[in-house]
């Protein structure tokens, strides 16, 4: 590929090059800019989904369903003690009533809890289950959940064991869909870039038809001619790509600052690791390679039609 940029000056003059004079570098700059944004979006969603999934995959919740608060508290403590003794379980935490109140607050409202009847606590009027939060030593599969149920059931009849990942499965699924839509956009943009390169290469071929004809008749090969176009388009793509990358990176950083200011759950987990940045940085290079390959195929295809 390096040989493309070390073509002697006299060969380069065969097909005049005007840097940033035509629309091609600007079209590629816009395409690369959009590709950078789409790639960053896809990667951010992929990482967020993975982070959340990693955090929750080894967690499970035990629900002790019992109307009598005293029995419920005893069953919860017994179950917690049993669970602490299991090798599968790394951490056990019985959720205090205040935390459960917080959890249901979005549905019942703080005001309702505060203004609860004279008992002072809504928990005493609503038969809420006791919750035990578990952190396991490995992801909670069906086998692990079965072991947990077997351990808890004798102590608390009707106790439920649920993997935490199941609770946000629809969110993960949505995040994954968004991720694939973003990557789909990247593919579509790459196809649009290739189409723009084809149009540009054909136009350039048409403009330099006479020169190409002369080079052919003097014994020039298709490869010699296509190299000239490849180089020209590669340089256009590189310049446009760098411009697109700079603009795209600026937007990503700006959005990153704004998202981190929101400071809420999944949104805050939207971030880009160093290898994601590496992929984003490679977008203009991949764009240039795509443009070069497309230009070469277009030019070689067109030259093959000439004797």
């Amino acid at each position, binding site marked *: 590929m390096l040989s493309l940029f070390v073509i*002697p000056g*006299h*060969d380069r*003059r*065969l097909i*005049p090059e005007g840097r940033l004079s035509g629309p091609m570098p600007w079209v590629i700059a816009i395409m690369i800019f959009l590709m950078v944004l789409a790639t960053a979006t896809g990667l951010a969603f992929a990482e967020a989904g993975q982070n959340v999934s990693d955090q929750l995959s080894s967690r499970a919740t035990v629900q002790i369903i019992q109307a009598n608060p005293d029995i419920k508290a005893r069953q919860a403590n017994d179950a917690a003690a049993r669970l602490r003794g299991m090798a599968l379980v790394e951490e056990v935490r019985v959720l205090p009533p205040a935390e459960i109140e917080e959890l249901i607050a979005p549905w019942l409202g703080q005001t309702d809890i505060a203004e609860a009847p004279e008992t002072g606590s809504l928990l005493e009027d609503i038969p809420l289950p006791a919750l035990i939060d578990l952190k396991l030593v490995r992801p909670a599969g069906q086998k692990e959940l079965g072991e947990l149920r077997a351990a808890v059931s004798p102590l608390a009849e009707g106790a439920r064991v649920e993997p935490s990942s199941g609770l946000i499965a629809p969110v993960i699924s949505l995040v994954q869909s968004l991720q694939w839509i973003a990557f789909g956009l990247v593919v579509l943009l790459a196809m649009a870039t290739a189409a723009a390169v084809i149009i540009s290469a054909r136009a350039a071929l048409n403009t330099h038809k*006479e*020169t190409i*004809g*002369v*080079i*052919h*008749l*003097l*014994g*020039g*090969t*298709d490869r*010699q001619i296509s190299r000239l176009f490849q180089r020209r388009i590669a340089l256009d793509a590189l310049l446009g790509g760098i411009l697109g990358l700079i603009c795209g990176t600026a937007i990503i950083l700006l959005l990153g600052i704004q998202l981190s200011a929101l400071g809420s759950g999944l949104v805050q987990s939207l971030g880009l690791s160093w290898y994601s940045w590496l992929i984003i940085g490679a977008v203009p290079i991949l764009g240039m390679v795509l443009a070069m390959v497309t230009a070469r195929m277009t030019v070689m295809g067109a030259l*093959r039609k000439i*004797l």
Partner: protein
Amino acid sequence: MNEIVQFENVGLRYGAGVETLSDLSFTLYPGSFYFLTGASGAGKTSLLKLLYLAQRPSRGLIRLFGEDAVTMSRERLPGFRRRIGVVFQDFRLVPHLSAFDNIALPLRVSGVKEKDLTTPVAEMLDWVGLGDRAEARPATLSGGEQQRVAIARAVIGRPEILVADEPTGNVDPEMAVRLLQLFEALNTLGTTIVVATHDIHLLSKVPGAQMMKLEKGGLSDPTGSLRNPPLPRDRA
């Protein structure tokens, strides 16, 4: 004597039209000088296009340098074209290149190193009287000067065959004689020369040259002297 070009029953048709060239059969020998004459539209340029491999015939056999040029693969054509020098009727100079770069083009296409081409190109520019116009673009040259650049470009690579289409059409009689002298000099060095021309006065200026006359796409005297191998010009 081995033939350098051989045509057998060659016909050329553009699209679905009538044949521009019909039943051409002749042989060209190395080191010979040929004039190709005929009225406008007789098919001179078409015949030259077949010779310099810009066109494949619709039928018949063409052998060039002992090889079948009709079925030759595209990949092999550049190698054969480098052995043929062409002076186009419309010059076909590359407009954005200087006279020097235009003349150097065949050498660069063949991969000659830059340090090895400066002297021959400069000498060729001097020879055609354009030593002081090396950096001039074609648009700033007169018709005659452009034609001389085109001729210099055709001969710079010492081709085995030189094909010239009306090479003296735009130059004064004195320059025409000089150019013919250049062709003769090349011919004596072994280059086969084929010059298409309207100017029958040129024929007398190259003693021993053979003549092919085209009429309505065919040779007017297909059983004439071309059937017999002529002696090379330096021995004629």
